[in-house]
């Protein structure tokens, strides 16, 4: 069973993402912001990270950069989850090392099917 680290500063989004993913059979760890996610990633090796972009303390783009510096996360799929679908944000994310992006609002079913693209 794959484990997923979901990072979002919005409690309702966290709940929704974790509910959806747990229902699909994934193990989910939640973090409130990039900093907290990075701390978790230091201790725990998850199979996939989904992160919001706009967050206090540490934004999603910075988180992606920092995660890629960790050995365990060099090839891990990292998705950014954002409402900003402008090419600029996607490019920023990709440059930082993100595997891909998910555009909010998303359909829960779609989230699950999209994840299959990067998870075994």
């Amino acid at each position, binding site marked *: 069973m794959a484990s997923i680290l979901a990072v979002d500063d919005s409690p309702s989004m966290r709940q929704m993402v974790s509910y959806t993913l747990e229902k699909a*059979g*994934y193990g989910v760890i939640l973090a409130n912001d990039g900093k907290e996610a990075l701390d978790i990633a230091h201790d725990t090796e998850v199979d996939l990270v989904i992160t919001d972009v706009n967050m206090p303390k540490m934004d999603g783009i910075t988180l992606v950069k920092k995660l890629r510096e960790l050995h365990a996360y060099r*090839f891990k799929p990292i998705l950014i989850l954002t409402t900003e679908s402008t090419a600029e944000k996607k490019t920023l994310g990709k440059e930082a090392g993100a595997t891909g992006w998910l555009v909010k609002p998303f359909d829960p079913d779609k989230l699950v099917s999209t994840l299959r693209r990067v998870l075994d």
Partner: protein
Amino acid sequence: MSIDLSEFHDVFFEECSEGLDVMESGLLELDHTTDSEDINAIFRAAHSIKGGSASFGFMEISSFTHVMETLLDEIRDGRRDITRDGIDLLLASVDVLRGMVAAARDEQAYDQPVIDEVHQKLESMLVTQTKVDTGIAEQKEDTASETVQICEKANVPREADQRITSWSINFKPDASLLRAGNEPSRIFRELMRLGELTVEADVSAIPPLSEIDPENCYIGWSLSLETSASREEIEELFSWVADESDLEIACAATRQKLPDTDVEPGTGKQAPIVSAETPGEVLVEASADVTPNVQDQPAEKANTSQVTKVAEATKNKSVSSGSGKESGSIRVAIDKVDELINLVGELVITQSMLSQTGVDLANSEAGHFDKLRDGLTQLERNTRELQESVLQIRMLPISFSFSRFPRLVRDLSSKIGKQVELTMTGEQTEVDKTVLEKIGDPLIHLVRNSLDHGIETPEVRKAAGKPETGRLELLAYHEGGDIIIKVIDDGAGLNRENIITKAMEKGLIGETEDLTDERVYNLIFAPGFSTAEQVSDVSGRGVGMDVVRRNVRDLGGNVSINSNDGAGSTVTIRLPLTLAILDGQLARIGEETYIISLVSIVETLQMQKESISSFTGQSELYRLRDEYIPIIRLSELFGTKSGKKNLEDGLLIVVEADGQHHGLFVDELLGQQQVVIKSLESNFTHIQGIAGATILGDGKVALIIDIPGLIQRYSKQCQQNECLLGAVS
């Protein structure tokens, strides 16, 4: 899999109101500073609301917030100046959003005209006034439609298009592709879900082994796919890698089955894959079976115990690591906390029962029970600490109540043409949730009164030699077991003569009474003293001041006002930190024990005969220093038969309420202790002069005296007696 999102709505709504609070206070800050962190916080809040509302299907909220967000984004990027008008409009938008969220929560209709009006204003502000014209309108349109589009796409089921198309796909990734976590084999696996896939690898670019960088991708693929899926669906699967590869997707044929290929999906020749999971380990596996099993749903039936375990770890994690502004808060239903508080209350009572028994035993057996006593002492300390920390759960900072005032003061002062600077101190002072909720309205009354009638217009202030900008201060701090809240203004203050005239008109005071300033000022809290129309007559306040006092009293507190003519006034509210416990003085009257809140007690004294005098043969007064204090014989007022009759045999407890002193005549004092307040109302009824009951160490019920109520009861009785006398004469 269908997922019902409605169960997250409550969290979402709560989050929205928190977000709106953040936006409002941030916008108010922008009046003074242009801190980029403030703007970021406002933007983030708007952004979260937009994203959340779209995800949960509140499209109107989402599209409204979208316009705000665009405006905020421009401010954040420095493309737009922060103007007062802009802030006003954004504040109005916050109000509109708040209304929309409330309507969505209550499943009511939106107030469409208001929404449209503000929406229109936002749009027109967006179109104009930009610092740098960067084709924002165009960009805006683009993003505005995006929200809707995606949702439509998500909701509309895949077209029931039966046409089979053959696609030929050329996919040559950049060498760096694997480093971002993308894995071609997984993309191919997803392509196989769409139809029949044939994969051929082009391994010509693989360098000699010695030159291979195991983290690079050297292989290209030609794929052919027979599917009923649309081009968009195929492109979607490649969307994350399109920028990092040469990708060609071409339509080879339609309505045509691929000429006999031996290759079935999932078997046969498969592309060699560089595995990113094991870099440098195995480079090429010719004809290796890397076919992902299409049936293999991701862990749908996975080991459930493991799921739970991770889920639990998740919960622990998110509870323990919550930080920042939320200060590690958890949401707990209030009735759960109350249940806990009740249980701890029981524990306190049990503990005090035991310790009473322990003392009795220890006395009878002369030190034989030292250990028992030690144990009980420890139990007492533990119980007390447990109670304190449980009560802490209900405590919230007063800022929850204060936070509305910057907005209120800003709106009201500009409306009435006054300049007011608000300062707030001690916002982190904590108080019980119930107290906090109930003190909100009285505080609004007080602040409005200060603005309306306290602080003068700039012209008047200037003429009086004061700074044109008036000062309003909200202050909160702990003192003893209470919270003190002060509302201070440097306005005109109260006019003693006007109040006395008004009070005489209303029959609140007699003509000859010689009153202290304190007594005079506090007359404004008397019921019927003033109404809105009469306010201007008394140079000051009056709107609902009796309501303020009643609310404060209901919470077991008191309110008083002090004033300097021409220099401002200070309203002081004293409230208990919690409504669950009380620091009490135990007093005996006859066989009964009564409890008086320590806060109301001024002093306790033994009466001297020569200082006792009677008044019209009905009431008794005690002269204490230069003051005559009415003596309340509790046993008579309560109609109990027992208790001492001779005043010199007992004690006089001098209590204060509304700036007035009264003396309670009791037999003796028994000691002080913290008591758990039990409501009489749940099974019985409210009794004037009784605030509730508690259970003492011996298991007996003792009544807690409500001093203001008691004094009212006493005055009523005196008036009745006077009426009787009048009727007789």
